[in-house]
């Protein structure tokens, strides 16, 4: 039932520092992952780090994406630090 929203997820250090696991945000035409990141960075405080200070990776619908990737209603967008598994 997220027909006009976007689900935004955070992982690892970002999840901890933003004290946020999931956000529902309104969808809008011609929105990109980069726009979303900029909007979130504008919240100030810990959120400012999304403004390019730290490397942030983005996934759209569980596939690695770029800042230019378009986001539409119902999409799942995730922001996280560079991965360190294995």
């Amino acid at each position: 039932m997220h027909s006009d929203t976007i689900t935004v997820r955070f992982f690892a250090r970002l999840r901890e520092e933003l004290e946020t696991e999931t956000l529902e945000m309104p969808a809008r035409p011609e929105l990109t992952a980069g726009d979303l990141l900029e909007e979130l960075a504008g919240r100030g405080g810990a959120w400012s780090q999304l403004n390019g200070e730290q490397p942030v990776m983005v996934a759209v619908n569980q596939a690695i994406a770029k800042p230019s990737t378009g986001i539409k209603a119902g999409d799942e967008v995730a922001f996280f630090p560079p991965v360190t598994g294995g």
Partner: protein
Amino acid sequence: MISIQIEDFDVAAEHSALRSSGAGTGAIATFTGLVRDSGDMEGVTGLCLEHYPGMTEQVIAGLIEQASQRWNVREARVIHRVGRLTLSDQIVFVGVCSAHRGDAFAACEFIMDALKTSAPFWKKELTKDGEHWVEQKNSDLDKTKTWD
């Protein structure tokens, strides 16, 4: 076979599964990663591993697919643990069986190298002085570049 799990895994069972892949299999290469006492910092006592459920499995399936297009891969098995691990615990297993030795080695190392830079896992190191998120190493990124 791809499994993201909290429980430990049994290398012997994985090896048996790879061995039973048919009479055309001539080579099995495996890699097992363990928690060691010096990661980013000295005195590591354990790890806590987080992942992105769903995406992780898709990324790994894509890596196995890529490896299968480049090399003779009869079967690949990847297991990655998440949650809290202590020193010397097994973290990750990659096993590949192939008709040929070179293909088994290459596919196994490719999957392991690519997993480190593209599968959504994050490690937090636990030391007696506290905990910290591990930073991605340039050496890992460089290894992935050598496969391009």
